[in-house]
């Protein structure tokens, strides 16, 4: 029988073909964080990609210029709504760097513990969502359940489950609760058990492995040139971690490893996150052991820290102090400073410019995932459409942070 693609003149039929434009997002199940990716396809292979962000742009930097320094905390919370505590700590450290103050040791450990819990939340959600988008819903539920345990701890400590606004310049909003240490010592092993369980479901799953191993690979030089930091950079084998290279908040006293990958593919990013959660647990247990049970949480400086509520109502000094801080804000010395911490995604930087008044002149956030999403175009060009989903998931884009 005559083949179907043959013309009567025995010449091959030339089928007209042109690249197809496909639009993914901004509302697409795999585009969590609201991003739009316009891809040009040849068959199912992506030949060109244009990543468009900005759907969650809320003018963070502009809003910060309106209130006083303390009023920035709710905004930084909402920049990364998956691990807001790390952003809180990052911003407090930035303002404290300008003020030239260091919070008491107890507070530093408190920040480390809460921050590491938030980092676990961040990684749990990223790994879980990535698995879910590949069809593995059960691990996501396991991870979400594990995150629930952490959120319960946060709720007990801060009063809020997601956006805590718990950081303060010169300390924290409240001292640790009485059963803070017991709660975490009981909760974190349960979290780790769930992580193990969820991970076992994935790492022996052929479908999951086939879709992450060797996909979305990036070289060390490219990752560096793109400005990548955090897990995404470490997955290529570069052990850059701010907690190790420029320790802050007593991280130098804590013993932990920086997990690195070898190839910089989705699998490495996934595994680095999994391992980092275990390292977080190590950090937490050491920090809890070293953390003093008593002692001040806030620095002793009436120009920076709000007085006790009791003093506000009973003493004139307390009233004046409260009034000055609330109405005028903390007076931060004029100048500029860049402070950086290791957030869930990578280096979270704050570039602050102060004119010496109680209101920030400029608050610039250096969101870690902005650079990661910038590299997405390169990662997915040449891949197939189904590879886009785990690749995007493994970058852990947080819309609020990326779009400011």
């Amino acid at each position, binding site marked *: 029988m005559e083949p179907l693609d043959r013309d009567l003149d025995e010449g091959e039929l030339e089928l007209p073909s042109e690249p197809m*434009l496909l*639009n993914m997002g901004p509302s697409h199940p795999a585009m969590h964080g609201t991003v739009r990716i316009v891809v040009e396809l040849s068959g199912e292979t992506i030949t060109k990609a244009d990543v*468009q*962000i*900005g759907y969650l*742009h809320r*003018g963070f*930097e*502009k*809003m910060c*210029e*309106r209130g006083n320094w303390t009023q920035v905390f709710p905004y930084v919370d909402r920049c990364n709504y998956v691990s807001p505590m790390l952003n809180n700590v990052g911003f407090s450290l930035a303002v404290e*760097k*300008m003020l*030239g103050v260091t919070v008491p040791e107890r507070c530093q450990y408190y920040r480390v513990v809460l921050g590491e819990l938030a980092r676990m939340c961040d990684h749990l959600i990223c790994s879980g969502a990535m698995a879910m988008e590949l069809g593995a819903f059960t691990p996501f539920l396991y991870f979400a359940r594990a995150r629930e345990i952490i959120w319960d701890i946060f709720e007990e400590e801060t009063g809020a489950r997601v956006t805590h606004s718990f950081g303060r310049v010169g300390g924290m909003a409240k001292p640790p609760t009485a059963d803070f240490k017991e709660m975490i010592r009981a909760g974190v092993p349960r979290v780790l058990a769930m992580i193990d369980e969820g991970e076992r479901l994935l790492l022996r799953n052929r479908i999951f492995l086939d879709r992450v191993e060797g996909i979305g690979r990036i070289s060390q030089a*490219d990752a*560096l*040139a*793109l*400005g*990548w*930091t955090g897990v995404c950079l470490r997955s290529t084998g*570069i052990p*850059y971690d701010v907690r190790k*290279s*420029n320790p802050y908040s007593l991280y130098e006293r804590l013993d932990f490893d920086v997990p690195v990958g070898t190839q910089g593919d989705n699998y490495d990013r996934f595994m680095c996150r999994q391992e980092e959660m275990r390292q977080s647990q190590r950090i937490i247990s050491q920090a809890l052991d070293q953390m003093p049970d008593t002692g001040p949480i806030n620095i002793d400086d009436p120009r920076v820290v709000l007085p006790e509520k009791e003093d506000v109502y009973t003493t004139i000094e307390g009233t004046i102090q409260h009034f000055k801080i609330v109405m005028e804000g903390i007076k931060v010395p004029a*100048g*500029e*400073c*860049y402070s*950086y911490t290791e957030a869930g995604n990578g*280096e979270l*930087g704050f*570039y602050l*410019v102060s*004119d010496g008044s109680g209101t920030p*002149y*400029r608050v*610039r956030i*250096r969101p870690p995932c*902005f*650079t990661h*999403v*910038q590299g997405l175009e390169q990662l997915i060009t040449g891949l197939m459409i189904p590879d886009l989903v785990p690749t995007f998931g493994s970058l852990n884009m947080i819309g609020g942070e990326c*779009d*400011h």
Partner: protein
Amino acid sequence: MSQQVVELLRERFPEAIVETHAQFGDDTVVVDPARWREVALFLRDDARAAMNMFIDLCAVDYSALGMVTGHDGESRRFEIVLHVRSLDRGHRLRLKARVGDEDAEGAEIDSLVSVWRGANWFERETYDLMGIHFRGHPDLRRILMYEEFVGTRCADYPANRIHPLVEFRDVPGKLPPFGPDEGMSFGRQDHERRMYDGDEQAAQGELTTQDGRVRVQSPIVAARED
């Protein structure tokens, strides 16, 4: 941060450096905007600096603070701030350049995309929010704001202004589901029309819409209307 790199720059570009300081321990060099790219290249390629990590690029509008002094002694409105780090040496540097007069005239500078690829989106963002033009940028478009937005948000936009709603885009050649009714799945067009628009086999009759466009009627619609 590193004092050595500042010394190195002072040695190499004595005439390009406007000022240096190390406030709060962050070593900073302010350079002549004309030498911006040259200095950046030197920082990346010189083995003693080896700044291979691009960290951050942003701009600060100093108009509310009484401007800053540029390299020629004139007052300048914007300060472009670059943070870079060396992976091997572990040092950081902040590089700044001052551009633009009061009305943001002359707010342009060389693009650093060819030096660090990571600068791409950061420059687009700075262009978007501050209106600074980066010469030689491969793809200078808005990134966070929409194209119809007037002005530059951080620089000129009053924070309390209520912005009017922008009309729907009517761009010819856009993808079929993203015509004038973008984002309105149950908008002014009906589903069948979108599905069969332009499909000659499906088209049986022609109707004209209110705005004069020829509307191709689909068999489904035709069947329903019968």
